[in-house]
């Protein structure tokens, strides 16, 4: 049992509110990612769970024990730091054994556990080295081994991949995911990298200004962002947002954008209630189809910039008085300045309220 519950947690630094009335339950064995821009309070939240910060208000419960006032040593947690924080004056073996020695495990048990952890992270042959002789990726593995050797109920990770180069990051990401399947500790993982969050998380809690904006499985967070912030923070390129007005024509709901009318398919009836009011249409770049000629419900646009990125192309388009991004396959030939038409995948558009920035529930759940 190591469910983590944060109940109305507040943390202030001077007059800055780092965490604002945060309530969150992390299930036993879950891999939860705290995602957000720098300064959103995600690391502070993690440090509150670790016990490195004491919340100003609120309770933290780990596996039914209220740990709010307990020191880190008595919380059953282990943590991986962004800087790895491997002890430079100890060998890799001593680094991994550190926590076990502090807790006075027998020498035999220490030997056994350290070797197991080293094996799991494929660093058996490095055990007698000093950290200065290791590469960044190897140090990272030592830091993870040092944490999991404790068999913690809760494993906390603070941007553990951010100091690795792109290739190694990609590799370690898959490694961490595999590791979690094996050790099954409840894991809280802090990152500002949305790809990392999508890739790793069972659930993603998107944070901003000390609050959780949306907490859901990656697919939902990506496809159905709760508000414009989530839509623009997740996805690269992010979701496009277009100003429009809801209109009714022939009993069909439509959105009028900069003079162009987009008729919505069945399922959007509920939006009819808002007829006449402003709305924001969100659409992800991959859900825009590029057409060579005008079609019904297609939007005229002009190609501004074409960026080949591997097997795809990223287009910057001028349409409806705004700038849009769209992705296409690399084999489509286009030139800057060219006139094209855009067809939105209307099953995948997302309506937002222009005042609050929040998503409007306008479709049937099965729509």
């Amino acid at each position, binding site marked *: 049992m190591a469910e983590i519950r944060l109940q109305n947690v507040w943390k202030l630094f001077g007059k800055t509110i780092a965490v604002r009335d945060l309530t969150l339950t992390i299930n036993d064995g879950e891999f939860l990612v705290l995602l957000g821009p720098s300064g959103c309070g995600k690391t502070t939240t993690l440090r509150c769970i670790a016990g490195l910060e004491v919340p100003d208000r609120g309770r933290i419960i780990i596996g039914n024990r209220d740990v709010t006032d307990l020191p880190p*040593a008595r919380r059953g947690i282990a*943590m991986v*730091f962004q800087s790895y924080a491997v*002890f430079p004056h100890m060998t890799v073996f001593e680094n991994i054994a550190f926590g076990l020695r502090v807790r006075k495990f027998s020498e035999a048990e220490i030997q056994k556990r350290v070797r197991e952890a080293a094996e799991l992270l494929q660093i058996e042959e490095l055990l007698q080295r000093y950290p200065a002789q290791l590469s960044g990726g190897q140090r990272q593995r030592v830091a993870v081994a040092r944490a999991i050797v404790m068999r913690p109920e809760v494993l906390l990770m603070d941007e553990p991949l951010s100091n690795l180069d792109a290739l190694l990051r990609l590799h370690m990401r898959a490694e961490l995911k595999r590791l979690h399947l094996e050790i099954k500790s409840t894991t809280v993982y802090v990152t500002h990298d949305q790809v990392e969050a999508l890739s790793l998380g069972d659930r993603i809690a998107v944070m901003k200004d000390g609050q959780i904006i949306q907490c859901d499985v990656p697919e939902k967070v990506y496809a159905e962002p709760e508000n414009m912030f989530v839509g623009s923070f997740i996805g690269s390129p992010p979701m496009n947002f277009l100003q429009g007005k809801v209109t009714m024509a022939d009993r069909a709901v439509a959105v009028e954008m900069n003079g162009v009318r987009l008729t919505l398919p069945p399922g959007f009836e509920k939006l009819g209630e808002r007829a006449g009011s402003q709305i924001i249409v969100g659409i992800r770049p991959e859900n825009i189809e590029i057409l060579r000629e005008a079609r019904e419900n297609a939007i005229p646009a002009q190609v501004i910039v074409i960026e080949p990125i591997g097997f795809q192309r990223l287009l910057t388009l001028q349409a409806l008085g705004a700038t849009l991004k769209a992705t296409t396959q690399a084999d489509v030939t286009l030139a800057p300045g060219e006139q094209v038409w855009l067809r939105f995948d209307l099953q995948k558009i997302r309506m937002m309220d222009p005042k609050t920035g929040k998503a409007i529930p306008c479709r049937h759940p099965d729509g």
Partner: protein
Amino acid sequence: MTVNPIRLRLIGIYLSMALIGAWVLAPLLLVTFATFTPPPELYRWPKPFLPSRFSTETLAFFLTTEGVLHSTVTSLLVGVLTIVLAMAIGAPAGYAMARFSFWGKEGFRLAILVTRMFPVAILAIPLAVSFIRIGLYDTPLGVAIAHTALALPIVILITTSVFLGVPRDLEEAAITLGCSRFQAFLKVVLPLALPGLAAAGMFTFVLSWNEVFAATILTVQNRTLPALVVYLLGLSPLNFRFAGGFFMVLPALVVMFVIRKYLTHLWGITIR
């Protein structure tokens, strides 16, 4: 190809280095050579730059002068006491400066830095008065207390940077692995800070060993070596002065040799 401007620049740099080096090191060389010059040669005119033969007469004369051995012991004692006092107060202060944020920290920093600007002479006078009252006058402890006051700002400065050089993450990692804050300090911070702290201690010793003014004012019988040398300065022959000077520079040279590895550390800390 034209004359390489980078070559030219290098020549300029080396010339100026030589000049500055001479400026600060020349007196040292002068003293060293004079110490090992046979005494008669010292009074010859013009004095040759290099002694004709290596002679320890001057040094022997100095070491056998009455009071020199006693004051050397006193100086050593004062130096050790100063290290103990300065580290006992300065290291925790440096740790607090490096790790905790608290109201008034900036002001405290300023105060520490500013006190380095005050003349020793002035601080020594009221100290002498108080020491006479409380019985610390003319004792090694009294001098050590004065020297600690002098050394404290620089010790706090150095220890702050030494502790800043030990990443906070390491301490926190130890804590999350089951250590108390104190255990984390002992097992992780201290081993990593030790070289820097040792360098700070040596620095303190040299500072105390070389301090003349407070030592002169606060002692009568139990003079430290520099106080004695300065006291005897007017009365003694030239060769005594040079040997005294050399003898006083000696520990600085030894210490420099011992901690040369960490001197760059000190510098690195100081300017990074």
